[in-house]
């Protein structure tokens, strides 16, 4: 894939890869800078097809007629060039890769996470800001989410549990306030 101008999509000439300042694109004139790395010039390996095995040679687990060249580092199955997946400098079979991704074995397999602490905090704050009454529902929901997902894996990025804590404190505060309000209303009605 050639390096192209982000605006006009015209391929950029090679002098862009060594200059250290913004240069106008020869096609559209947009000022562009390219930080290129040797991988750009590395020839791409030809797609693996897997060689046919001859009598006496070990065959691939998934394609018995193809010659096995490596073993899966996790399950030890014999793999041909077609089935071998080079991931994190290890040889993986498609099955192990798929099951590891499904079972979330290690954060390198994950590409999506729900931030339950932010959800709990939103339930604790937004209904309260919307003129108090909606927090009758919001506060218990925030409490439930905080307790239910306290130990659930959060973001893979550095993050504390402060949002959960704030959500719990706010939700309890709102419930106490709501209870006091109901008590006052009921008490004053009885007296009246």
């Amino acid at each position: 894939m050639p390096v192209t101008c982000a605006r006009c999509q015209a391929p950029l000439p090679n002098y862009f890869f060594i200059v250290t300042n913004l240069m106008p694109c020869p096609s559209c004139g947009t000022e562009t800078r390219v930080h290129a790395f040797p991988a750009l010039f590395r020839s791409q390996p030809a797609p693996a097809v897997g060689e046919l095995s001859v009598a006496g040679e070990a065959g691939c687990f998934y394609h018995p007629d193809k010659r096995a060249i490596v073993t899966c580092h996790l399950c030890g199955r014999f793999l041909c060039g077609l089935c071998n997946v080079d991931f994190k400098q290890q040889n993986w079979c498609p099955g192990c890769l798929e099951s590891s991704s499904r079972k979330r074995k290690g954060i390198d397999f994950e590409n999506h996470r729900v931030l339950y602490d932010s959800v709990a905090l939103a339930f604790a704050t937004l209904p309260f800001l919307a003129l108090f009454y909606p927090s009758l529902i919001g506060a218990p929901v925030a409490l439930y989410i905080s307790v239910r997902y306290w130990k659930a894996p959060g973001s893979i990025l550095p993050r504390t549990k402060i949002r959960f804590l704030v959500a719990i404190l706010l939700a309890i505060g709102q419930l106490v306030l709501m209870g006091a309000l109901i008590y006052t209303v009921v008490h004053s009605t009885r007296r009246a």
Partner: protein
Amino acid sequence: MKWRSERRYRRLPGRPFSAISRDSLWLAEDHLLSVQSNRFSETYRRYYFRDIQAFTIQRKAPISPWTYAAGAVAAAFLAPGLLFEFQRTFLWISGGLFLAITLALIGLGPTCVCYIQTAVSRDRLGSLRWIRTAEKALSILQPGIEQVQGAMTPELAALPSEPPPIPAPAIQPPPLPGAKPPETGWGYEFLFVILLLDSLQSYLSLSHRGTPVDVAGWTILITEVICIVWLMIRQRRFEVPGAIRVIVILALVVTAGFTYAVYMLRTIAAQLKPGTATYPGYVPLHMTAIAVYGVLGVAGLGLITRHRQFLRRSPPVASPQ
């Protein structure tokens, strides 16, 4: 109890200018992690150092449209503050705040679009929106990539990076599956003008109250809502820049929020003091409405104008012979 998650990533400079989505870049031992967050969930994409081929930084405007918008709002607050005594403190504080934002945005310098390229993909890095930030982030990234791939040399760059280009076909290729035609209607311009009119109506309602202003307000509100809904339906069929989509959604959220706030405050005021026409927070709410609708209108008009210019300047496609 594990209070803090494992510190495996280091944050790279760059923050998006968005209240809804939040893109960020994180540096790990052997890869770059691009995180797209909508505040309630995160989506990750990893670029391993050995696979990264290039970063492309394309300069955009010398000053971002948001800077013009913030400057316009600052002027909108400060000019009446200088001329009139009415609500002078509020106007000065609000104007000063927007002036500070304007100066901060000017201080950030020219904006840019940054892309990361691998052998099989080319993705935009949403968090790198200023040239200075992008250069800073890439200077942190570069040593890690060079440690894996080696340094870039002029001899290496002299090699052809791609096979000789294939001559362009004479017949225009069919559009890619899922590709949408660009939006060419005037609906967006109409909506952004309506937003500016809403800002003007809010300004007028500070000093002139009565049936004509109320009727104008309701007419603008209904037109605005119909227009937003219509554009949100059209957005599914036509290609529109993400920033304009965000402004349309923000316009809907803001309109709903202001309508709800006015309705609730009026109800409370009517319960406290029956027969009163005004309500608590009338002036600050209208001032905020002037500012918010003004910003959305100006930013929207600026973005759609630039988008139209970009479409006009795009290289012409070879016509069928």
